[in-house]
C-alpha cells in the first residue's frame, strides 16, 4: 500500500475519533440541559480542550500530508473535506461548550412549558442525530445517508425561525420566565448552527465522494 494511503487511513481514524468526541460533548451538554446538571456541564467545558487539541492535530496532519505527499484527485478532495469537516466539528464542540456554559450560568431549571413551546428538545435530539448520521456517512462513505441530513436541517431551521415569536408570546403571559427564555433563545440559536455545521459536513462528504460542490446550491436553486 502506498504510504499516502496509510496516512489517509490514519487521518480518517483521527477524524472519526474527533467526531465521536464532539458527539459525546453535544450529547452530554444535552443531558446537562435536560437534567439541569451543572457538574456535567462543567465536564463538557473542561473536555472542550480535548476537542481543540484534536482539531489542531488533524489540521497539522493535513498540512503534513499536503506538504509531503502532494495529493491529487480523490485524495485531495478527501483531505480538503477533512480539513473543513474538522473545523466544523470543532465549531460544534464550541457550541456544546457554549450551551454548557449557559447551563452553568442559568439560575434555575427550565420550565416544562417553555421547553414545550419552543420545541427545543426535539430540536436538540435532531441535531445530535444529524451529527451521528454524518459520522456514519463518513465512515461508510455513504452519500445517501449524507444527503438525508439536509432534510433534517430544515426542521431545525423552522424551530429556529419560530423561536422569537414563540418566546415573545410566552413572555407576554409569563414575564417571570424572562431569564430562562433568554437562555433558551441563545441555545436555540446555537443549535441552529449545529444543524448548519452538520449540513456543511454532509456537503463535504458528498464533495469528497462524488466531487460535487453542493454548498450554497440547495439554497438558491
Amino acid at each position: 500500500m502506498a504510504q499516502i494511503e496509510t496516512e489517509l487511513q490514519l487521518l480518517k481514524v483521527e477524524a472519526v475519533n474527533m467526531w465521536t468526541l464532539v458527539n459525546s460533548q453535544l450529547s452530554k451538554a444535552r443531558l446537562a440541559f435536560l437534567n439541569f446538571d451543572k457538574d456535567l456541564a462543567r465536564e463538557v467545558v473542561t473536555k472542550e480542550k480535548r476537542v481543540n487539541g484534536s482539531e489542531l492535530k488533524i489540521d497539522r496532519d493535513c498540512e503534513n500530508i499536503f506538504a509531503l505527499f502532494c495529493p491529487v484527485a480523490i485524495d485531495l478532495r478527501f483531505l480538503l473535506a477533512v480539513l473543513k469537516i474538522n473545523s466544523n466539528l470543532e465549531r460544534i464542540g464550541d457550541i456544546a461548550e457554549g450551551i454548557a456554559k449557559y447551563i452553568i450560568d442559568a439560575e434555575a431549571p427550565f420550565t416544562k412549558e417553555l421547553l414545550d413551546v419552543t420545541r427545543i428538545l426535539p430540536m436538540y435530539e435532531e441535531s445530535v442525530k444529524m451529527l451521528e448520521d454524518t459520522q456514519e456517512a463518513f465512515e461508510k462513505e455513504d452519500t445517501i445517508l449524507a444527503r438525508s441530513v439536509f432534510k433534517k436541517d430544515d426542521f431545525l431551521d423552522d424551530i429556529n425561525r419560530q423561536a422569537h415569536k414563540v418566546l415573545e408570546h410566552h413572555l407576554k403571559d409569563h414575564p417571570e420566565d424572562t431569564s430562562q427564555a433568554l437562555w433558551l433563545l441563545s441555545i436555540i440559536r446555537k443549535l441552529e448552527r449545529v444543524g448548519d455545521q452538520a449540513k456543511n459536513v454532509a456537503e463535504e462528504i458528498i464533495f469528497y465522494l462524488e466531487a460535487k460542490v453542493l454548498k450554497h446550491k440547495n439554497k438558491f436553486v
Partner: protein
Amino acid sequence: MESTIIKSRNFNASFGSNHVVKNVNIDIPRNHVIAVMGPSGCGKTTYLRCINRMHELIPGATSEGEMTINNENIYDMHPIFVRQKIGMVFQRPNPFPNLSIYDNVIAGYKLNGIKLPKAERDRIVEHSLTRVALWKEVKDSLNKKGSFLSGGQQQRLCIARAVAMEPEVLLFDEPTSALDPISTSTVEELFHELKANYTLIIVTHNMQQAARVSDKTAFFYLGELVEYDETKIMFTNPKDNRTQNYITGRFS
C-alpha cells in the same frame, strides 16, 4: 474562439506487429498547452512522433487512421511540409554541435536550402531567440558554438530552432527530463509564453509538470487514450479509474 488544430480519428500506430497506439481520438485546440502523460511504454512518444510523421523514419513502423492539421490530412501531405508546420523538440537538448548559435537558429532554412537576405535572417534569429527568452543571454555570443550554453539554455535554443520555422504546432518529448530543476523551471515558464503563438503538445513522465504547465491533459494507458480533459479536472476529479489510480500513485 477555440478552434481545433490537430485532430485524430481512430488513429493507430505499430512497430511491426507491436500495436502501440490504439484507436486514438483527440481534438487539440489551437493555442493551448496539451500534456500527454502515462506510464512508461504506453505509446506517448510514438503518438507524438506520428503527429509530425517522424514515426515512419523507424524501419517497420506503420500507422493508420486519420490525423489532420487544420482539417487537412497529415498523411496526405509530404512529410517535409508536415515537419515544417509541426516543429519538434527532443528529450536531450540537441543543438547542432558544429554550428554557431546563430546558425543553429536558422538551421531549418539552411537545411531546406532556403536562401534569405542577411537582414531577414538576422530578424528571424533575433525574433526566435526573443520568443524563447534567450536573446538577452546570448546576443553577444551568437557566433559561438551552442555547446557552451547550460542545459536549459541549450533546450531553449532548440526550441528557438523549431520556432524559427514558424510552425503552428510544437511537439515536445519529455523536454525537461534531462535538465536539472532550475533549467526545468526556465523551460516550463517558456511554455506559457509560447502558447500565445503556437499550440504545444508535451509528452511528460512527470505528472507534476503536466499539472503545472498544461491546459488540457491526455492520459494514455497501454496504447489507449483513457481520458482527455482540462488539466484541472484531470487532477481534481478524473472520470476514469485508471487515471485516478495513476495520478494518485496507486498502481494495480
